[in-house]
């Protein structure tokens, strides 16, 4: 179905050193395209972030630019950038209805 207007172009970034925070991430990924969102979860218990983050670009170009670069180095550390595979939250469908009619 169409309706791509709301689509977010996300990359999943991991192996982020603890010294880097959201601001630095946004700055770094800004070079590939406009960053719409940046989600870097912190562990409330330890106060450290979890080492991974999601960067959402406004355009597909941003996403592709970021993915095309094979080595991402941030303050001397190699960070890993992948296409986001996290399923959309609404994908939890009713199991029963997935099976088809008449089999």
């Amino acid at each position, binding site marked *: *179905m169409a*309706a791509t*207007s*709301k689509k977010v172009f996300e990359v999943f970034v991991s192996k982020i*050193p*603890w*010294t880097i*925070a959201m*601001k*630095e991430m946004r700055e770094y990924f800004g070079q590939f395209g406009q960053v*719409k969102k940046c989600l870097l979860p*912190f562990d*409330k*218990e*330890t*106060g*450290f*972030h979890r080492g991974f983050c999601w960067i959402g670009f406004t355009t597909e170009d941003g996403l592709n630019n970021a993915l095309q670069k094979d080595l991402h180095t941030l303050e*001397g*550390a*190699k960070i890993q950038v992948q296409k986001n595979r996290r399923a*959309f*939250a*609404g*994908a*939890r*469908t*009713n199991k*029963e*209805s*997935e*099976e*088809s*009619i*008449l*089999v």
Partner: protein
Amino acid sequence: MAALLRSSRLLNFSPSGVLKITGTKVIGPPLSRLYSGALGGQRAGVGSRQFTRCSENVSRPAWPYVAGSMRGYALATEHKEDGSLGLRSKQAQQFDWALAKLDSSVRRTGRVTKTLLLRIFHDNCRTGHPSGNQALLLLRSCGSLLPEIPMAERTELAHRIWEKLQELGAMYDASHYNALLKVYLQNEFKFSPTDFLAKMEAANVLPNRVTYQRLIAAYCQEGDIEGASTILGFMKSKDLAITEAVFNSLVTGHARSGDIESAKNILLVMRGAGIEPGPDTYVALLNAYAEKGDITSIKQTIEVAENADCSLMHRDMMQVIFSLARAGYQQHVPEMTELMRHDRGYVPDAMNLCLSLITQGMEDTAFGILKSFPALQGEAPNTDGPSLGSFFLRHCVHMDMPVEKVTHYCKELQESNLHTTPLHFTLACALEARKTDMCLSLMKVLKEQGLPVRPHFFYPLLTRHVKDKNTAGVLEVVRGMLQLEVSPAAETFTNYIIPAFTSIEEARKAFKDEGLTLESEYFLSAEVRSVASSNLAKFYTMLSDPAFPVMEIGNFRGSLTVGFKKFSDIESMVKITDLLYRDARFTRGNSQATDTASFLLYNLVDSMTEAEVHAHETKLREYFNKLSDQKITISFNIYRGMRNLLDSYHVPELIKDVLKLVDPKEMTSPAPNTVSRTTGTGGKLEMLETKLAELKAENKPVGVVVKQIILALCAKEDLERALEMKQQYEDEMTTGTYAVLINLCCRHDNVEEALSLKRELSRRDSSVALDASKYIALMNALTKSGRVEEAMDILKEMKEKEVAVSDANASLLFHVLNNLGAKGDAGSIRQLQDTLFSLGLAKPTANLCSPLVTAYLHSNDLSAALEAAMECQKRYGQLPRIHDIIVGLVETGDTELLQKAMDFVSQERGEMTMLYDLYFAFMQTNRFREARKIIETPGLRAKPGRLQWYAEKCIAGNQMESLEQMVEMTAKLFECDRDEMYSYILRSCKSTNDWKKAEAVWTKMQEENVVPRERTLRMLADILKTNGQEVPFDVPKTWYEQDASIREDKTPQPATAAPPVPPPPTGSDLQVRLLGLCKKGRVKEAMDMLMQAGPDVALGAAVYDHIIRALLATGALEDAMTVKHMAISRSPGFQLSDLAINLLIITYSRRGQATDARQTLNAMVQADHVPSQLSITRLVQELGNQGDVTAIQEVETLIKGLGLAPQLSSMVFVNNTALAHIKNGDLATAIELLEGMYTSPESTHPSMAFVFRKIYEQNNEQAIDKLAAMAERLANHFACYRPATDLFFQLLEMNKLEEAKSMLVRCGGLAEQKDILLSYTSRMARRPGQVGKIKALQSLIPDYTEKDVHYSYLMKCYGVDNDLSSAKALFDQMVAEGVSVHELSLKRLAALYRNAGEALPFPEPPESFKFYSDKLKESVSRSQSAEE
């Protein structure tokens, strides 16, 4: 014990020794190349002993020899898994977990952290009842495995554990006292040996050889030779063996008493006693010199040791280094460090040395060692450049070292390019440890070096304070931040500062009082958040104020959702949503305000749980409706997301309310939801035959029944009659029927018939393919009769028709080939293999490659076998049966070929594999001396899989000597799982019932410091008990029983395939016939045969069990009991299998003998067997029938205790308890029970259809009235429709349509339960004769689903019922109404036409049935995923 004294050093490997391996000429010089090659390390002449040693030596301070005892945990888990027949106590699981944790820690690092140890300890305390070996495991870990903890603290910890676990009921035996002694020795704890012995005596625990050995060590550690001599004398008087370990202690003892000469002389004494000084002896002596700083003697002694073929490894050297440093002779350390070879495992060992040194305050010495670490071998594989020394820095932080010193180390590490970010790393450690002062100082250093200091660096410090509401702590950190000129970002402020205070006001004031100035917007957004979550009206007032600044919704969305989720103020919710919808101040960047609002809706629903949505359903509806009134719209996308969420929460009722919000311009139609599942229908042959006759009489189509009859005949292996049927009903034959028949012919080795059937089939339709297993069966039949060419044609046909070969099929192929191998027919195998692999039908696995080698081995042609194996390796990368080949070569002494084989293996698979192959070949042929030299090859490490393989071979073949030899030889093998190894011996002891050997194993394990796993202890206890021996340790009883029963279960099991213990010929013959009769359902005959056989005929337990099961299946309980008694009297130790016991429970329950059934169940559970769901269900149903509420409860408790509850629907108990109450006339309680269950927030709304069915069966009108009222109440007041739908379907089932109709009137919501209604339809459509129900449903609720879906189900029903005329009418109706007819429906219709022998009035869809059903499935799921 003498065996333990035998020093392996005598047999040390050296290149010259290699020549002797298989005699003087067997393996010549070329082999030696292998041994001293790459694996062997850098030097020639190196001693064999390179790695772990587990021997007893007190003078060695701290190295993780315990490691060896805990290896290979993964294997143990698997072992447990196949014990899943029995129950697992929590205790054992916990032990498993703890062992796994500690093991992995020791394996990786050679140490354990205190945190981990304490965690396991506390877990043990919390759950109570610690087992003996849990205690042992913990105690063992309190010594040198904790290099990061000061020694005194370690001993203290050991004592704490000892006392606490004793309090909780842990039983201590000699192994625990010995472990405690070891800990004392490792921690250099001063204690009185006499008191210790007295304590043991008081506890009634007998000291053993190991105890005395360690007490001697304790005296010697203090330099008390006199004390040591007393014990030594005592040992001699008791005739206990004096081992090398004792002498090693004496070396230390003399040295510490100041008599270094006597220490040296011990070596001579040893030789006099026939014991060669081992490396441990030399290490004891070296330590003695080290304590005196005598570097010259140290070097000399090292040389002496080398000359005695006792080369010292890095671990030994590290002890000497430690001794030097502790005695204050650090200056000699670098010299020693240089002497160390970097063997495998050097880095973790050196790390532990560093840690110990730091703990003892000798960090500079430690740093020197750190710098000697081999390059590029940082402790963690890290792609971000070197990070050597992280562990060092971390420990410095933990030891509270001054910041200046740590930064000095950092600087040096960075300057020498060993670590890229040492300061950041150190800071992270300090933050983790929450050492505020150290952190702030470190950040200051960072800043001075021009490195950034960021707000989130302070989070770890703040979190703890916030959690503790420690405002002073928070202010201290904030002050530190401001001093470092770091301004806390908004996020810091709201998440990590404000929450510590009770209110924002308090925070504002506290900051002011402290003279800390912060920007006011921090406080504002904090306030907004706080108000959003607590007071929506106030929030609206705040935000709607035009003076309110621009603030993105991201600042408060989370809090606002929290506030919304309370649903206490719908008015304000609407107002706020409206405000966000229209006011751009709260929208981020360039997005639309309308989107901001609709995302909020999505977030709201997404953040709610299913239960919350159910609880607030009406409020949500009200909210949505009011939004709609406000003309707020959402995009279709958002709607779709929300719809999916609501669907998954099972509140589809709300979807229409959300749909109203969608911009009408964006509307599209949703797709149908459907459900279906197939069930197999089984039928007795007689029944089918009657039906066939009936159909024929009525002149109706018989195709389906014919097919069923043929299938049934095939299942009964009745080829003759099956072929007759085929002959008779040639026209009714389908592809499937042909396939089954062909397969049956192959099983009966009737190749001709099979081929002719196949030809017939392809005449009908040449494109038809059989499935792989049937093709392979055909191949097998062909090769058996020597028709290899034709077999190859079958393979080609499979390829042409693209038949996929699964793993299971591959094993069938293996059997085909292997049968040829057994005949020695290498030629045919080669042809078949070539075809098979070149066509790519199956991957050339080792298994599939092996038959060729087997063929040559069978004809004793070793050379050809080797060639074949080598060819396989070259072509397919497989080396089949190489062990057997090498064994053959070793046995025949064909050196040339052996050399060739070894060269080849080594080249293709590496030296490690080659060495193991050779090792096992020597072991297999009892050439232990040669084997030992191989296994002691420097650099060799344990390969658990291979060791297990050989051990299993020994156990199965009863080769105790070989097994014992292997266990002993592998004592020092790197990473060898010792417990596992000893457990192999125990298993062998068990099978030979040798308790003396078993007991000796236990002592050996203590000496080696092995922590036995529970299963090992159980096995040992079991052996001792069966031989009437006292068990000297504590074993949980159930475990022992379970283990034993599993073992008994398992042994007879294979009897069905091939009896492992061949009974006398008459017995085995009888056995086969009995099993055959049971299989054919002629159990009465089997019974008669058994009765006639008389008591002398030995039958396997499995046969009895089989007959009992067959009898129970026919309900012949009494006969079954007779056989059971017979089995017990004739086959000692006979026990019913789980299957049989379950059948027994079911039979009792069916006959209303609930008491017997329960007794059987209880006995079963007590014996740690697991009852099946079905047997529990039947029993509980019978108890419900009898109105025995208490019994149901007891069964439920019993079953829940087993942890089986999740597998068993809890409704079995609830429904039957309710029925029991009803039976007892206590309707009120029944209703209370059911109602309580459905209204509980956790309820998953399971089905109570069973209850309705029963009360209608009983025609209990009172119960029907009351329960119906309950169902309606639940539906109308709690929106819980399950009971109502259950009742509704029951009414449909009984064709009480009027009642069903009036029910619909009373419960309006019922008609909206479309998922449930549809799933009912699909269930009905699977069974014949149910079309009326579906029609009735549709007449009552015309819109229960889309019309096309309804019609397709009807078509399915007609198909099942074989009702062509109705199907035709339906088709016409569909065409007339313009409803699209799916291909699948057409396909069904076509089948009906064909069955009736009528011509098709439309073209039949060309593809198979499955194709269209897959297509439909796909299109449904595609439309669903597209919507998402």
